[in-house]
């Protein structure tokens, strides 16, 4: 019955074997970047290149969100002039990128991580402190 490894089946059938936490990388300051070091617990589960590619893309997306560009400057000035009431009807640039990130993580989970018994948790749910990777025990074959 459960031949496909969908996320819903994963969470219901499999027990959590371990959790790996990818910590923040502060070498460039307080910008939101995550360490690209490949954790030893994932060595048997996923290809190092793919993992680093995921983290690097996430880092680039967060850098885009926090970029001090003309767009954020205009947004800041407009907000100041309207006494910050503009945020009641408009979404900030950061929030737009966060939605992009959520979609990217969902897509990565569906395509790459779920078939290997892993699950990426969106860092925003952990206060942008860590990327939590849950390793599930492979039980689905026992059914």
């Amino acid at each position: 019955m459960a031949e496909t490894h969908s996320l819903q089946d994963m969470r219901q059938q499999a027990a959590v074997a371990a959790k790996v936490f990818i910590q923040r990388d502060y070498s460039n300051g307080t910008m939101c970047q995550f360490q690209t070091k490949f954790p030893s617990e994932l060595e048997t589960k996923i290809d190092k290149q793919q993992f680093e590619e995921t983290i690097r893309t996430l880092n680039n997306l967060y850098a885009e969100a926090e970029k001090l560009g003309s767009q954020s400057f205009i947004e800041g000035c407009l907000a100041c002039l309207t006494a910050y009431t503009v945020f009641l009807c408009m979404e900030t640039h950061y929030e737009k990128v966060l939605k992009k990130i959520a979609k990217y993580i969902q897509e990565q989970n569906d395509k790459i991580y779920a078939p290997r018994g892993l699950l990426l948790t969106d860092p925003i749910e952990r206060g942008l402190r860590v990327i939590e990777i849950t390793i599930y025990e492979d039980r689905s074959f026992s059914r």
Partner: protein
Amino acid sequence: MKNCEYQQIDPRALSVSPLSAQNPAEKKVQRPRRKWEAFPGKNRFFCDGRLILARQNGVLPLTLGLIVVTSGLFFAFDCPFLVEHLTVCIPVIGGVLFLFVVASLLRTSFTDPGILPRATADEAADIERQIDTSGSSTYRPPPRTKEILINQQVVKLKYCFTCKMFRPPRTSHCSLCDNCVERFDHHCPWVGNCVGKRNYRYFYSFIISLSFLTSFIFACVITHITLRSQAKKGIVQAVQSSLCTVVELVICFFSIWSILGLSGFHTYLVASNLTTNEDIKGSWSGKRGAEESGNPYTYSNIITNCCATLCGPMPPSLIDRRGFLPPDEAIPAAAASEMELPPFTPKSDANMV
């Protein structure tokens, strides 16, 4: 089937749908709780989690009261006279400034300053595993620090025992609010909230606009008394006929010094990308000769520093106040916090092994 703790999920139970249909009926009896209702810090929430304030909101009512009363007296007693003798722009400018001040103040007070949510039990356990415990027998282990390199400079990260995580750089734990706040500046009793990454720009615009407002009212009041004393040919009679103006004069005179001083100080902080916390502790100056090489976060350019602090992208709130608590986690949240205490007793080595 009451789920009070994490249990091994029995695959057979999940395929039986009538059982799961009964649980929502039970859950509907208990109203779904939002995350702000179980928030561990000392904060107060309004409008169903949309607005946040420190529990000790200090003198915020006094601040608001002073501003409203002084401005009210200004509009009621000075404006009619000044409109008659000078120009109608005066109440217009005063009105705009007043609205801006109140908006900035309310925004500063009710915005999440950048509170970091506490580490989950799994995260805390993971960090504990990574730290070397040298088997000390004291109840509270020595402060744990981690050294990292930021822009080729060594910065020490401290471990927060309350939030169970290593504090990111520039983050500090506010004891009044019992939260770790990112880019912690200070806890302002006048505003009734911490000032941190997310509301620093509102705080800055509040004190700048308040400086303008107090200076403006002060100038108008002086003009009013001068014109009246010319008309009545005596300052004493002028003062006697407009006592409220004198009240405004006194309030403005005393507040102008502190507010202008504060504005100047914060302008210096913004230009050098420092926080009040760092400045007071002398984190970057005093250890080295030149200040530029001290602070690893500065862009070494005043304009870039100002833009970064005041006009940078608005970071989102990391505490999800209005999200719903999963019904299972509402109870274990209390149990989990009790389970965290044992690691700090001498038996912790046995638990971790």
